[in-house]
């Protein structure tokens, strides 16, 4: 394949980067990201507590109010039971005692409700604020990471950490912990209250209730298997849908519908069998526990009533029976909840580990303390014996020497993967060189602050990047204070004005995600306008390969020419005109500059360039 025609500079670069394990890896070598060994439970918890500290008022309040609310809630059945004992029979109702008791009950209930609300509110506040803090920190962290890190990790994975994992931590850990806490208090409290009334009956409740937990567990185990089967088939069917409905137009064009339908129907039928089974099994758990609970209810009722009559096994009042009945009813609930919460907390720990792994990754080196500002750059650039590799044992650039006087135009030419785009990475200090020296205006680029160095450059990559916002905002990206006139002027010079004013909203048209409906060429024109506005001394351009349409390409070309006038420029060139108009063509191969000179000189030399030229532009 012709090396010229394959596209994607970033892809090339990432390919160069990936496949190594010596980088600043999230998982540190073979170990998985968020390795439990690297982050033991204790350490994770301590660190999380660090995030909670700024919100400790919410934190403490939520726990205190949880405790108060649970205890008050548990106290109500006792009061109700006592109340029933005051209502014995006709003429035997103790109103003197009943009134204060009912009042007390009302107060307890109001208190319980109030604290329950307070607890809910505090936990929410705590978890969402903590989530926000973590999220902002994680996102900040990404902005301080070296490019090598961002290039070598799947963006989906990094985003997952910032968005989903952080959510998991919030939901699972913070809410989970309060639920766990509430559950434990409920269990302990119930036991204590029951014991305060009657030991024997307490034993009865404690001994029979586990039955329902076992029942729930057994059913869960049974249904798990069918759920797994269902999920597997659902996954297959989902895959089919994703692929075939995703390619529905293709299916249409090939009249392949009936065949796709056949496969779909087969999977769908399979899913019916598995799904029906799984759903039936799964739907057993509620009635199952309800059944056991009903039996327990009967047992407690009978034993309690016998106790009231005979005093054996326990001397109880009718109200006492009521109390035990309601405790028996609610005693099992926290157990089930606690089991659920524990799995949730485990997931949350895994998420927390993944997030911490990101937060602990090594950042890019900060600017040197004595770094200077690059003010009023002239545009002189020198590479002196520069060596660079993305991966230590795979050398990429070797002994690169370039001397660019202000205003000179360089075309970088060579097969894919030869290191052309790497030069751009090095100039902007996205990556730092291993050996040699890159100087701007006679001073090593390391001596400047990154910010001022980068401001000296203007960059247009073939992977255009526009963010969600208006056209004007996108053009003014590098120059936030720019007036509308300046933006329009830049757009005009970039040959973008014409199509912008044709948009429904003109300069205020909102660009959707990923550049919305703009064509590749239009996107590139906007990017050129953006650079035009910042008026940099040095240009780094990466020409698009084949994806641009010809008409726009002419405009892009004209815009590039306008942009390059009077500026030092380095162009990763794909277009004949660019190459021919360059002051110097740098022919790169395997990380070295093997030929340099003007188009005519190089053609006359009949070397690698001449060969490449023929394979690209001749048939």
């Amino acid at each position, binding site marked *: *394949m*012709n090396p010229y025609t394959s596209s994607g500079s970033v892809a090339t670069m990432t390919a160069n980067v990936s496949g190594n394990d010596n980088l600043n890896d999230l998982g540190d070598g073979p170990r998985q990201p968020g390795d439990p060994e690297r982050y033991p439970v204790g350490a994770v918890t301590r660190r999380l507590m660090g995030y909670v500290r700024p919100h400790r008022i919410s934190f403490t309040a939520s726990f205190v109010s949880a405790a108060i609310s649970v205890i008050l809630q548990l106290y109500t059945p006792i009061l*109700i039971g006592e109340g*029933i004992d005051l*209502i*014995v*029979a*006709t003429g035997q109702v103790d109103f003197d005692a009943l009134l204060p008791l009912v009042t007390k*009950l009302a107060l307890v*209930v109001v208190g*319980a409700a109030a604290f*329950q*609300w307070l607890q*809910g509110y505090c936990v*929410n506040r705590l978890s*969402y*604020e903590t*989530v*926000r803090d973590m*999220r*902002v920190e994680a996102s900040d962290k*990404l*902005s301080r990471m070296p490019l090598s890190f961002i290039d070598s990790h799947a963006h989906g994975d990094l*985003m997952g950490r910032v*968005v989903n994992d952080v959510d998991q931590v919030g939901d699972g850990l913070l809410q989970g912990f309060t639920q766990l806490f509430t559950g434990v208090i409920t269990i302990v409290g119930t036991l204590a209250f029951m014991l305060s009334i009657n030991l024997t009956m307490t034993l009865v409740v404690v001994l029979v209730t586990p039955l329902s937990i076992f029942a729930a567990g057994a059913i869960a185990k049974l249904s798990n298997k069918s759920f797994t089967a269902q999920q597997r088939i659902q996954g297959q069917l989902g895959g089919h*849908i994703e692929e075939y409905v995703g390619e*529905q137009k293709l299916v*249409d*064009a*090939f*009249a392949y519908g009936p065949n796709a339908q056949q496969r779909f129907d087969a999977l*769908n039928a399979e*899913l019916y069998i598995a799904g*029906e089974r799984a*759903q*039936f099994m799964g739907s057993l758990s509620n*009635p*199952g526990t309800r*059944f056991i609970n*009903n*039996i327990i209810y009967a047992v407690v009722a*009978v034993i309690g009533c*016998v106790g009231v*009559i005979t005093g054996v096994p326990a001397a109880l009042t*009718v109200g006492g029976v*009521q109390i035990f*009945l309601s405790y028996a009813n609610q005693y099992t609930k926290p157990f089930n909840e606690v089991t659920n919460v524990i799995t949730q907390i485990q997931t949350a720990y895994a998420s927390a580990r993944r997030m911490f792994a990101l937060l602990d990754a090594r950042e890019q080196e900060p600017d040197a303390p004595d770094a200077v500002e690059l003010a009023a750059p002239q545009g002189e650039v020198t590479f002196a014996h520069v060596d660079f590799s993305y991966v230590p044992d795979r050398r990429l650039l070797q002994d690169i020497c370039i001397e660019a006087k202000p205003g000179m135009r360089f075309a970088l030419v060579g097969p894919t993967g030869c290191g052309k785009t790497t030069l751009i990475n090095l100039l902007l200090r996205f990556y730092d060189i291993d050996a040699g020296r890159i100087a701007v205006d006679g001073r090593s680029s390391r001596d400047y602050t990154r910010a001022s160095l980068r*401001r000296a450059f203007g*960059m247009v990559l073939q992977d255009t*990047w526009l963010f969600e916002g208006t056209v004007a905002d996108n053009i003014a990206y590098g120059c936030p204070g720019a007036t509308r006139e300046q933006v329009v002027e830049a757009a005009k010079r970039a040959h973008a004005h014409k199509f912008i004013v044709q948009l429904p909203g003109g300069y205020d048209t909102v660009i959707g995600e990923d550049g919305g409906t703009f*064509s590749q*060429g239009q996107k590139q024109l906007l990017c050129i306008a953006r650079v035009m506005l*910042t008026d940099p001394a040095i240009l780094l351009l990466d020409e698009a390969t084949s994806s641009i*349409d*010809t*008409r*726009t*390409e002419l405009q892009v070309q004209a815009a590039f020419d306008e942009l390059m006038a009077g500026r030092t420029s380095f162009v990763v060139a794909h*277009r004949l005109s660019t190459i021919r108009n360059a002051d110097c063509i740098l022919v790169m191969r395997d990380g070295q500059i093997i030929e340099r000179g003007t188009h005519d000189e190089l053609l006359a030399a009949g070397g690698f360039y001449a060969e490449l030229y023929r394979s690209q532009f001749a*048939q």
Partner: protein
Amino acid sequence: MIELLRRFGGKFRRYMVIGPACKLIEVIFDLLTPLVIAQMIDKGIGAHDVNAVIHYGMLLAAMAVIGISFTLVCQKMAALTSQGMGTDIRGALYEHINKLSYAELDRFGTPSLITRITNDVNQVQLAVALGVRMLIRWPFLAVGSMCAALAIDLKLGMIFLICTPAIGLVFWFVMARCIPYYKQLQAKLDRIALICREGLSGTRVVRAFVREDHERERFAQAADDQAHTAIAVGKLSSILNPVTFLVMNLGVCAILWVGGIQVNVGELTQGQVMAFVNYMTQTLTSIVYVANLVVVFTKASASASRVNEVLNCVPSITDENNEPVALPQAPATDVDAPVPALSLSHASFSFGAGAANAVNDVTLELPLGKTLGIIGGTGSGKSTLVSLIPRLYDAGTGSVSVMGADVRTWPLDQLRRVVATVPQRASLVSGTIRSNLTWRDEAATDEDLWAALDMAQASEFVRNKPKGLDAPVEAGGKNFSGGQRQRLTIARALVGSPQILIMDDSASALDFKTDAALRHAIRERSMRGAAEGGLPLTTVIVSQRVSTVRDADMICVLDHGSVAGLGTHDELYATCQLYREICQSQLRREELEGQQGSAVPALAPSPVPAPGAPTAPASVCAKEGC
């Protein structure tokens, strides 16, 4: 929801009656339980009769056993109904999607269709299951408890009549307010993800412009915004549980007090008061469940209407009653057959009423066995134009004919077998190379496949695969390079001997040599097809490369949907300014010079037509200045 039930529920009507009926029995037993306990207390404890207590205990246990047996039947019915209906709906939906034409697919959008057939159907399925299982249980339990309480004592029952609607109101109030918030919350979370994604994909740009602080600020704002909304929702939704608890237990207070008065005057017994307390608990738990059901059904009904929207969408392109078209007899000797393979007559197409025409008044005729090249910028309507040929879209005005017959008279199946398309985006589906290649012809032999691969310049790398034709293909063809994928999609179109081949910019990832070899192979095949007495292969090539189309028998230059020029390379170069501009940006000077026989400045900004350039009368150039 109702519409879906009517359409798909008929088969399951029996289940939908049996299930809830069985559930009802359990509910009735649940309702009786407090009464039995009351009896146990009043008859057993009141009369100091241990046997009576045990007797009632046995009754409770028996009720539990019978209750669960019936429930199991109900759960089974629910599973059968919901999964059965889900399966039917899914199948019908998929079948319908297969019938939709491009216009409808564009309208819904692929991601939306995928959600509809997966999540939305699942949502409906869940609602059906819960409907069978719970729609009877919880409302009946709530109402039943209330009725039971009222039956015991009207006065005490009044407390129920106050508490129940109170809870209902609270739920309605809170949920009505929360639901819009939830939507906002999701949108805000999506925004966080968007900013994060933009930040990652644009790292280089952000850093090159030194706007890290701006991005940080943007993210922090979005995160803060989301947190604020989440806390606001939390504040509201955390009211629910405490208020339920509060109302329920204040009700109990009232029951104790009023119950005390009633017992004192002999209107009620102690056991009955207890029953009241238990009914109170039951009613209010039921209401919580009812509220949850309401949420599920609200979601499901939104899903159901999204499903219905697809099912009710009438495909705009149908081939009902179309008789198969007889292909023209092989004109082995007479290449200029009277019947053109393809002809467009004033064909126009727009994507929506009011939108500009994407294809505007295109008229052209392509004889059998010839090659048509279509060139033009992005958005000039090239892809749209060629998708009129296999009738993926219907021309709004004018007509498109294939083999002399208007495409609207063809059975779609036959038309799309005669016309093979290589789409712009080279995508394969998971399976094997073979399963991908046999899309057009299930019965294709190995020989056929290899012949197609040879033509598509793909046989070499396929042969190098250990499993050859049976080499696995991952979803989307991810395990092949762009160029390999493209060649496989070309081979896919060539299997099953199409009479017309459309290549929609489908050689863009191929290098010039492979591209040329491919075109050569296709031409050879066309000629061989004719020589063997079959129809010669007619080809339509869409490209942005001049080199790909320059040898075509006819080149159509498109500009904003209209024909800017129609003719051969030489004709167009001489007469069509747009075509010339395109050439000059792509071809080397020598080539152009050689062509024109005079010096044309290859890189001049606005080239002047070379003096003495041949003017071709056959060429049509509609563009001004051409």
